[in-house]
C-alpha cells in the first residue's frame, strides 16, 4: 500500500499517460498535485448553472 494517499493515484495516472515519475521527484510532484487539487476544489465548490458555457467557444 502506498505511503501517501495520492501515491496510488500518481502511479495509476503515470502509467495511463506513459509519463515517468521517478522516486526522487515523487514528493515534489505530490506536493504540487496537492496544491492543484486544493485550488481546483475551490473552483469545484462554486455552484454554476448547468447552462454555463466554458470560456473558450469553438467557432466553426
Amino acid at each position: 500500500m502506498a505511503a501517501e494517499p495520492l501515491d496510488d493515484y500518481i502511479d495509476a495516472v503515470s502509467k495511463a499517460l506513459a509519463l515517468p515519475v521517478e522516486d526522487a521527484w515523487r514528493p515534489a510532484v505530490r506536493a504540487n498535485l496537492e496544491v492543484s487539487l486544493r485550488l481546483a476544489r475551490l473552483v469545484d465548490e462554486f455552484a454554476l448553472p448547468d447552462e454555463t458555457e466554458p470560456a473558450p467557444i469553438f467557432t466553426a
Partner: protein
Amino acid sequence: MTAKPEMNAADIAKAVAGGQLSALAATEAALARIKQHDTILNAFTDVTAERARAKARAIDVDIAAGKKVGPLAGVPFAVKNLFDVAGLATRAGSKINRDLAPAKRDATLIERMEAAGAVLVGALNMGEYAYDFTGENVHDGPSRNPHDTTRMSGGSSGGSGSAVGGALVPIALGSDTNGSIRVPSSFCGIFGLKPTYGRLSRARSFPFVASLDHLGPFARSVTDLALAYDVMQGPDADDGACTTRGLEPVTPLLAESISGLRVAIAGGHFQKNVFPEAVEAVGRVAKALGATQVIDVPEASRARAAAYVITTTEGASLHLDRLRQRPNDFDPAVRDRLIAGAMVPAALVDRAQKFRRWYRAQLAEIFRSVDVLIAPATPCTAPKLGQVNFNLDGVELPVRANIGIHTQPISFIGLPVVAVPVPLEPLPIGVQIIAAPWREDVALRVAYALEQMGVAAAPAPRGF
C-alpha cells in the same frame, strides 16, 4: 549628438528622423551598454549585433535619401527569448528548445516593430517555459534587478524588466500569462502593458497557456509604451485568437483629460496579503486620481485558483511529450509542477473554464459603473534572489506562490492593464491600472496622467 542611456524611444526616434542622431549611433550606444552592463544584469541571452547594425544602416540610408521613416526609427529594442527571431532557436528559457532548428521568420510583433523603424538588438532571459514569477533560470542564471542586483527581476519576462529598467534598451517585449509582464515591471520599476486578450498577435512566439497567453511591451515612459503598442496592433491570421478589430491608436489620445473617468480601488482579495509598500503605492495612486470608492471584486481568490488550474493543465498538455522524453532536461521545479498538472482530472479543468465565463460577467457588471480599477501589481518590492519565504504580519508565506496573486485574477479574463511604477525608497513597486476589455486607451491615459503628476516614474537604475 550621442545617444544617452536615459533617452527614451520617442527622443531617439525624433533625433534620428530629424538627422541629429544616426540610427547606427543609437544602435551602437545600446550595444555598448549591453556589453558594459549585461555581465552583471544577465538580461540578454543573445545579442544580434550584426543584424542590428545592418538594420540601422538601412534606416540611415533611407533618411539620407529623404524617405519617410517610421515612428520608432532607430530605436533599439529586445524581446523575451520566446519570440521567434530568424536565425535563432526559440529557447523559451529552456535547455530542451535549444535543439530546435533556428526560426525561419521573426514573430509578427518583431516584424511590426521593425516596420516602424525599431532595431532588434537581442533576445532576453526568462523563466523556463514562462512558468515563473522570479526571473530566475537554472540554465542561464537569473536576470538581475537593476536597482539592486542581489534581488529578483521578476518573472517570467525577467530579462525584459532588467534590460529596460537597467536602461540597456528603451523598449522590450514580453509575455504575460498570469502576470509575467506586470511582475517584472513592478520589481524593476518600469511601465508594462498587458493588452486585452487577443489584441496583439502571438504568432511565432513559443506558447505556454493558449487560453491565457498575451504579449506586450515594456518601457520607461508611457509615451514609449503607447508608441510600441500602436505599431504592433492589427489583425493577424497567423494567431487564431487575435482580434479582427481595426487599429485603435492611443498615442494621439494620451494627453486627453481623465477628469471624467470613474476610478475605484479594487478591494477584497486585492487588499489582502500585501506588504506596507504595496499599500503605500496604491494609496498614492488612489489619492492622485481622487479615488475613494472601494469595490470588492467578487470571487477574485477563486479566479486566481481557476487560473492556476487552467495554467498547470494546459501547460502540462503543451509539454507532455517533452516530459516523457526529456524529463531530466527541465528545471526540476518546472517539471514537477507540469507533471502534477497532467494529473488534474479533466472535469475540474472544465469547471475552471466555466467559472471563467461567470467571473467575466461579474467584472463586466463592475465596468458598467467604473472606468478603471486600481490594484497592487505585486504584494511586495523585489525579494532577494533565491528567497523562499517572506514574513507577512508574522506569517511565513512562500514567495513564488504569492508573487502573482494580484495579477492572476485580472489576466484570467483578459482585461487590459498598465503596470505603473511608483518610485518608493529604497525600491520601486508597481500598481495595476485595469480597464474594461479593449479600453487600453483608458488605462494608458490614466498612466500618462500619473506620470505627468510625478506619481508614477521609472527610477534611474543604480544597482550596478
